[in-house]
């Protein structure tokens, strides 16, 4: 096993732990994406380029995008203008 592979595997472990410990959902998704990218490089080193392409396209691309859309739908990324207005109204009422 070369040093390069060891470094990549170390990054993999760090990413896995960081993804579960991160407080913000957006950061978690980005860390998860980097996990997939590192994994695809490891697939290339393990001589399975087929899997590497799929991992990069599905794991790092499509899954991340779907997660981001879901985050946007549950208003976890930005506080929407309408909800800010609602909050302002509530504060005025109270």
């Amino acid at each position, binding site marked *: 096993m070369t040093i390069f592979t060891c470094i990549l595997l170390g990054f993999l472990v760090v990413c896995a732990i960081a993804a579960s410990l991160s407080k913000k959902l957006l950061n978690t998704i980005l860390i998860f994406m980097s996990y997939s990218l590192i994994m695809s490089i490891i697939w290339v080193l393990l001589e399975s380029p*087929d899997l590497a392409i799929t991992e990069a396209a599905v794991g790092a*691309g499509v899954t991340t995008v779907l997660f981001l859309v879901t985050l946007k739908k549950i208003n976890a990324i930005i506080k929407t203008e309408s909800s800010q207005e609602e909050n302002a109204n509530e504060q005025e009422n109270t």
Partner: protein
Amino acid sequence: MSRKIPEEKYQKTFSCQFRRWLEGAKDPFAGEVEMQKQAAFAESQEARERREQDEKLLNTKVYDLENNFEVRIFRRFYKVFSVLFCIFLVAMLLVAVSDLPVFGHAENPVNNEVAERYIEKGLEETGAVNIVTGMILDYRAFDTLGESHVLFIATCTVLILLRRDGEKEQALDEDNDRIHEPKDDVILQTAARILVPPIFLFGIYIILAGHLGPGGGFSGGAVIGAGLILYLNAFGFARTERFFTARTYRRMSFCALACYSLAKSYSFYTGANHIESVIPLGTPGAILSSGLILVLNICVGVVVAGTMYTFYVMFRKGGY
């Protein structure tokens, strides 16, 4: 002979802008890019008081913690036990991994007569230079047929769960969807204009050269689907719906799955009855070779690309 250009035109030239940027002029995009920080979670005073009161009620009235000895013991045990169980699980998995055979060793149980046959006769029997593609689309094509159907069923499930019925609701969703999107974002559109054609070309290349090198229907389809999603994000639904709607998707995946099933039933029929297949295997390494594998790759790629795009659209606004 030099030519004078008007002052306004000179201000817009690339070299002038570049020089101004070098000299430290104001960044034209500063303060104009739509980006907001995630708001900190703020709990109102009233809600916190109510929550604390609820907790207190639960502990005193329902569990009666002061007199109920068992609940207290159970709670402590629960905490200790969950940590112990996690450590036990990690230890078990590590022991199992250390017992695995060495990676790539010749004596491993995976290196049996099946793998030997694939490697020795694979090129001759399937005509595919890429042995992996030869395996999944020829020897084990029935599995891949099932996988394509699983993808299709997954899309159907997403459709059932997320589809919005009624034009009124859909129109409302569409309005909500575009509120927080950067409309006609220059950076995104320019990047998409440059990136999308190479992404599509790369995806098509992966699909078509699946039997010659690494790649195949699934990965190529995923790449094309990602390209479609990028195009949709840059230019909006109005542009994509000119060529890709739910009806297009239905027809595309139906044709692809039917084509796959027909092609594979033909080879199952001839194989089971020991009839020579009419489709020639061709010379290995040529683009038109290896029998039906190219057709099957294209079918799988079409299904996967459509599925990825449909997933995204369903998550965004529940119908198109």
